[in-house]
């Protein structure tokens, strides 16, 4: 299969890209390959929302991202020919409807709630904050309010797992898998996995410290699939406060 795709890419690579890029063809390919994560209209879900393309300021970079994926995330390289990638890119460009961030009334209150609820212990905005959970500087560009609300009420509902298809280049998982380990010397470390291979594991604890262990140095290693260290805020915040916090998160739209 991989050979066939590569062959197809080789054959197509020597032909000039079609000047007529077919958005309908792009739409079919998008629905088949992209919509499961990015939503039928690019509204986002498990994958980033595509109504504002933060990583792809121009067509070249958009094509590059679709072709190569985004290392360290669940976005895989697309198993498509060069002309197919261009068709998808034309379609994805047309999804961009998200011009300026909408001023949300609750956003300022939500920021206060973010501060007092301890979110920054595990999440970072800009250089400030913890690294145990997902980075939030651009969360408002990547996810819709429904997703963010669910993440606050039921944090384990959408834990990323890096099990995307076509993941040929395994580099760094970006799924914040919680691991607990006990070393041969009795030390116990709990934190988020950074990277792992058959022989070693790298992780980060709640204080941001990075550890690297050869597995032969470990007595026990637990991977807490489906678990999140994040508590549900269902009973900690009122429904109105949750809405304000969602508004604040939606306002975080750093383009970097």
């Amino acid at each position, binding site marked *: 299969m991989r050979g066939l795709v590569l062959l197809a890419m080789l054959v197509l690579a020597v032909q000039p890209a079609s000047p007529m890029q077919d958005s309908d063809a792009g739409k079919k390919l998008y629905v088949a390959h992209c919509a499961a994560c990015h939503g039928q209209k690019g509204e986002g879900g498990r994958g980033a929302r595509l109504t504002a393309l933060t*990583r*792809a*300021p121009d067509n*070249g*970079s958009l094509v*590059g*991202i679709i072709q190569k994926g985004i*290392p*360290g995330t669940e976005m895989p390289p697309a198993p498509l020919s060069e002309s197919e990638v261009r068709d998808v890119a034309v379609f994805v460009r047309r999804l961009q409807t998200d011009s300026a961030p909408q001023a949300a009334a609750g956003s300022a209150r939500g920021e206060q709630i973010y501060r007092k609820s301890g979110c920054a212990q595990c999440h*970072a905005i*800009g*250089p400030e904050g913890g*690294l145990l959970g997902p*980075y939030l*500087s651009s969360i408002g560009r990547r996810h819709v309010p429904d997703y963010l609300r669910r993440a606050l009420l039921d944090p384990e509902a959408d834990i990323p797992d890096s099990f995307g298809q076509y993941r040929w280049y395994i*580099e*760094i998982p970006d799924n914040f898998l919680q691991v607990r380990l006990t*070393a*041969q*010397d009795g*030390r116990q470390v709990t934190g988020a996995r*950074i*990277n792992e*291979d058959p*022989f*070693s594991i*790298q992780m980060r*604890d709640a204080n*941001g*410290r*990075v*550890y*690297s*262990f*050869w597995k*032969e*140095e470990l007595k026990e290693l637990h991977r807490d699939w489906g678990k999140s260290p994040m508590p549900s805020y269902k009973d900690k915040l009122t429904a109105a406060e949750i809405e304000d916090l969602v508004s604040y998160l939606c306002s975080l739209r750093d383009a*970097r």
Partner: protein
Amino acid sequence: MRAVALLAAAAIAAQAQAPYERIRNAGSEPGNWLTYSGTYAGHRFSALNQITPVNVAALKPVWVYQASDLNKFETSPIVMDGIVYISEPRSGAAALDARTGRPLWFYRRNLPKDIRPCCGEVNRGLAVLGDSLFLGTLDGRLIALDRRTGRMLWDVEVANYKSGYSITVAPLAVKDKIVTGVSGGELGVRGLIDAYDAKSGKRVWRFWTVPGPGEAGHDTWSGDSWKTGSAATWVTGAFDPDANLIYWGTGNPGPDYNGVVRGGDNLYASSLVALDADTGKLKWHFQFTPHDVHDWDATHVPILVDAPVRGAQRKLALVANRNGFYYVLDRLSGQFLAGAQFAKQTWAQGLDDRGKPVLLPGKDPTAEGNPVYPGMHGGTNWFSPSYSPKTGLLYVATREEGTRFYMEKDEYSPGNWYAGGGIAGIPGIEPTGSIKALRADTGAIAWEFKLKSPPWAGLLSTGGGLVFGGSSEGFFFALDAASGKPLWKFPTGGPIFANPISFLSDGKQHIAIAAGHSLFVFAL
């Protein structure tokens, strides 16, 4: 053994920031490698002494990291508290676990399609300060990355890439500032050295390496030639905290081979400049090659040494220059103290008592092509020399390769090649090279190790009494620092265009070198 390893795993947790004071005293923690050259003094010397002439034969690779890009891999890693930070070709970066080589994060940049790097889409390394790393980019920008995650903190334009600028040099963190130079010497840029506030990315000062109207040195350029005078600044300098001076080499004047259109000495091209670290003001300059017409950039890491010269203790800046001569300068005044030829050269009788070359006639480029040694790539090049305080020797990878230099008329247009001529090899003579050990105070050659081809790899000397170097055929090797005797070699399988470093991991001395498209790390 296992207990030692666990101890080391615990040590990786003791991660602190890299404040200025720590970088200033980098020599006191040889287990880390905190600047491009290891310390501000530019020695590329590691005090680590576990690997010695006696045991180096047992040195073997412990991990290899393959870069994500197939351009020349020139990185000189930063190592701090168990993590190896590298730049990658095409302005990328990665953090690697020093124990295993496993990546902790990547930074990859979408570069514009129309970038204009002269000589390869390369990068030579990062700077660290506080919790940030700093990277220059091929599209002429300086960026700050969060050391913990690789996330970008700021991204500022140094100079417009469309005018021919790019950045390949590793920045230097000095106090609260990040100092960088630029590339573009073959594209008629106007060279500069900039300092940026490390926190905000705001520019604090700029030194133009080609003075503008009204500035001292402007009259060393005929007509408007200063506007395209180049003097690019693409190799990391050194810093003397006591003198508060930054020392930085400058490149060839532009256009490279046509000196007719830029009459005069062409300051401050092919020079070493000493700048006030707070203001960027010029304290002194020393021009190695006045009115250079052979592309002899003086873009070398200057080596700062305190040592006696002719009986008197001096603060020195040492430079083995691309033009084939070795220079001993007083680094407080720029005064020339001593010099010697270290590489084959056919253009000068020697140096006068001020260090100026005494020219031989008829060595300028011509329409027919004029053969001269050193060639365009020089008697040495950007790759780092090394100085061992243990031996008092300065080690320099030396090239012996002539060039036929051609002069042509060239029209300048922004962002395009502007060399004023061309180059060719000298028929029938195979270029070669060597590793040479020079007495630091005189430049007298203490020993020489012959290479087959001219090298593109820098050198590392160590407290264990070794000099590590690389060959263009891909051999990474160790020489006895006292005698030059070869003691160990490893075929990496790809040519070496990089500088070695050394660090501790799990309490053991490691040696790292980028070769081919991979970073190789060795230990006993």
